[in-house]
């Protein structure tokens, strides 16, 4: 619902349809009939946030509880923010049009570090104090979850509590406690203390951090009965886990404008750079019947004619072919197309190709991640050169002519030869096209090579590694550029400046809170967007705070250092990560979960791939 004041601004800004709500399937409740109001904030634009599956799941889940009304809030784009600030209009939720300051909970999902500035900016736009300690009443409780919550320390001063791991259960438990606390009339401190006892809840204010002279952490001490280690929450029965049969269908085009069906959580692979591959362990699948029924309900209720099967690596779904058979039994008739993102190089088979091709043919994207075989072994990508060429040949024979290849530069132990191998791999794909006898007639091949800069992340075997400095990353980008000779290859690279800032916050500690607060004061926002991001401005802030950002980005940690996130447990043991790191130095790979258990620690949850019967592989 839009207020009269907001309506006056809408025709002055780009894409006003983002600021009005009123979409099909949005949930409207009567304020008087609910006890807990939750503002679900996505710290990026409407188009990005509305594409996020986690938000859709939790929005529907919360609203399925009669006493909760969950509404959506997105970061207004800079033109709208300017208008709102000029006219003193606070940030509002789309459903009711009420300011976020009216809400009991203000929840953020943290998908990437560069959205931190937007989180604070959004609070400020809602006239909500950004510091947790300045919000003293039992209202405007700021909560946060999502992958970045695995190292909550750089934003520990602003968030009252973090949800560690999967949110479906813990969020509702906390809201129930809130309801009780308000009925009893207890204060916010007591509410936080009670929540800290819930598994998966981290209340940063209940912990004290002491530092060594060199800036590393000396000790991390819980207070007031808070647990020393916070264990993540995990949904173990995926077939019984809540999944919406309905999505809010946006009025304006969003980034992923289609139905999304989750098929499993976690990833069997264990690529050593990939945080998702570790923090979502163990792999837990939904059954083909569940997926099929959920897909059908979703398409029926939204009117979408495209459904995307979502997971970290779709072709690793153990029953992918039976699933596609079930789906294609009705999707053709109902004119629904299926898309399979996140295909692995070794998972692209004729069978899968023919199933997805029946409805739509889009470009193919693979992520070999590294150019040389040695490098791919270091990161445990477990993809062989021949497999990639074979896959490309299959695709070319099937009529595809464009292939996108994703790589990373700046990986541990990388040499200039490894970097040049990226260009060579692109060339090999071009050659494969012309060596495939039945490639599309009279058409040329297009290979896009994209290189992003490696950002070491917590809870990965590379969490101790330094990031390459910006000049080194530039040198590597240049080296690839010069090594490419074919006009059929397009080379893109990701800006190293943003990767640097990402690296600072990914492994930052509480000392960075001061920088974040200052960034908010100075009006920083949309750092994930080239339109707004300026490393120069950030460097000036760090200097003003007396903080050296390269301490976080470019420093090699020793195995015995206390890391800022050591008190959080995602099921994967630190000793396992160390072992994996050492194996990386030896160019040794680790088999995936279905081949052999490597005893990472996730088996303690008692479910999932860890307990699947392993097939005897010939």
């Amino acid at each position, binding site marked *: 619902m*839009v207020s009269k004041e907001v309506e*006056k601004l*809408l*025709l002055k800004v780009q*894409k*006003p*349809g983002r*600021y*009005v*709500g*009123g*979409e*099909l399937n949005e949930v409207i409740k009567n304020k008087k009939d609910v006890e807990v109001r939750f503002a679900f904030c996505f710290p990026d634009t409407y188009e990005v946030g509305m594409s996020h599956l986690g938000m859709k799941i939790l929005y529907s889940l919360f609203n399925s509880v009669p006493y909760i009304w969950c509404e959506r809030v997105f970061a207004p784009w800079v033109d709208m923010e300017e208008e709102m600030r000029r006219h003193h209009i606070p940030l509002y939720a789309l459903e009711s049009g009420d300011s976020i300051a009216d809400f009991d909970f203000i929840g953020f999902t943290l998908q990437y570090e560069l959205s931190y500035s937007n989180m604070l900016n959004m609070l400020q736009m809602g006239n909500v104090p950004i510091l947790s300690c300045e919000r003293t009443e039992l209202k405007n409780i700021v909560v946060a979850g999502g992958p970045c919550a695995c190292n909550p320390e750089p934003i520990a001063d602003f968030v009252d509590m973090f949800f560690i791991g999967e949110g479906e259960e813990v969020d509702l438990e906390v809201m129930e406690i809130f309801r009780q606390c308000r009925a009893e009339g207890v204060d916010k401190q007591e509410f936080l203390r009670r929540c800290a006892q819930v598994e998966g809840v981290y209340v940063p204010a209940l912990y004290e951090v002491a530092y060594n002279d060199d800036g590393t952490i000396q000790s991390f001490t819980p207070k007031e009965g808070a647990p020393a280690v916070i264990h993540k929450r995990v949904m173990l029965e995926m077939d019984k886990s809540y999944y919406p049969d309905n999505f809010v*269908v946006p*009025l*304006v*085009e969003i980034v992923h*404008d289609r139905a999304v069906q989750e098929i499993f959580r976690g990833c069997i692979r264990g690529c050593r750079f990939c945080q998702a591959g570790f923090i979502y362990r163990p792999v837990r699948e939904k059954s083909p019947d569940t997926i099929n029924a959920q897909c059908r309900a979703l398409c*029926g*209720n*939204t*009117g*979408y*004619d495209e459904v995307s099967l979502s997971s970290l690596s779709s072709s690793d779904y153990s029953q992918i072919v039976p699933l596609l058979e079930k789906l294609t039994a009705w999707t053709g008739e109902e*004119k629904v*197309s299926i898309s399979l993102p996140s295909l692995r190089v070794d998972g692209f088979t004729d069978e899968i190709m023919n199933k997805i091709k029946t*409805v*739509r*043919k889009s470009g193919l994207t693979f992520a070999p991640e590294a150019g040389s075989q040695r490098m791919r072994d270091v990161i445990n990508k477990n993809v062989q050169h021949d497999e990639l060429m074979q896959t490309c040949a299959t695709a070319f024979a099937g009529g595809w002519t464009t292939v996108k290849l994703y790589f990373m530069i700046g990986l541990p132990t990388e040499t200039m030869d490894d970097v040049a191998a990226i260009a060579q791999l692109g060339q090999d794909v071009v050659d494969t096209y012309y060596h495939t006898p039945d490639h599309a007639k009279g058409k040329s091949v297009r290979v896009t090579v994209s290189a992003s800069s490696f950002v070491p992340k917590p809870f990965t075997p590379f969490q101790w590694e330094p990031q390459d400095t910006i000049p080194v990353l530039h040198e590597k980008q240049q080296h690839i550029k010069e090594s490419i000779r074919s006009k059929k290859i397009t080379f893109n690279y990701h800006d190293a400046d943003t990767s640097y800032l990402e690296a600072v916050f990914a492994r930052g500690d509480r000392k960075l809170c001061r920088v974040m607060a200052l960034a908010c004061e100075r009006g920083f926002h949309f750092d994930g967007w080239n339109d707004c991001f300026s490393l120069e401005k950030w460097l000036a802030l760090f200097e003003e705070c007396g903080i050296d950002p390269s301490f976080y980005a470019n420093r090699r940690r020793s195995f015995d250092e206390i890391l800022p996130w050591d008190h959080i447990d995602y099921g994967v043991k630190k000793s396992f990560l160390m072992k994996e790191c050492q194996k990386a130095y030896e160019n040794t790979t680790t088999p995936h979960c279905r081949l052999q258990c490597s005893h990472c620690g996730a088996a303690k949850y008692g479910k999932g791939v860890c307990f699947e019967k392993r097939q005897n592989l010939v």
Partner: protein
Amino acid sequence: MKNVRIWFKKDFECRYISHLDLNRTMLRALHKSKIPIWHTEGFNPHPLATFPLPLSLGFRGVNECMDVRLEDDDYSFEEIITQLNACLPRGIRVFDVTEAVMKAGKIAFAAFTVRLACDKTPSSVICRDLRALLGQDEIIIEKKSKKGMKTVDIKPAVQSYEIVEEFDFARLEILLSAGSSDNVNPNLLIAALQSKTGAEYEVDITRNDLYNADKEPFR
């Protein structure tokens, strides 16, 4: 196979979506409603809908239409209204379904209600300024074209108008040339007024009926 014209209103939140977004929203609603609409053939079959005259973002539309081809000649029009409304956001309401009597190309005029308000200017003054503008022999505006800016006289497009002073706004009822060849958007008129008076108005535009060259309502 039968061509039908679906009549709807576009207002509230849906006022703020572009023509492309309206098209997408309609196609999804048609798909969800399972009304037997003819689909394009080929790799990516989708229902086909055409809009005789797109509506600008921000305008309310009270008599908008969209053409589709029905695969089942006997499908009830009443049924289309009920089913489609159940699948559309609240800002778009279907109120009638008819045969497509006139071809889209026949559209020659469109009637608008334009409400103009300004904090600093009383509505009587806005009315006076509007009268002065519309009373001119020519209204020259700058228009973006493929070859850069060019100046156009939009006065010939003004067929008839009425200016009414309301309590806190000025209301202009105006009939303008419309259609694929010389369409004049009422926003051009507002821009001309703004550049003349220097005032900034709050503008609220509703498109009413469409007409053919003989000023018969478009059906």
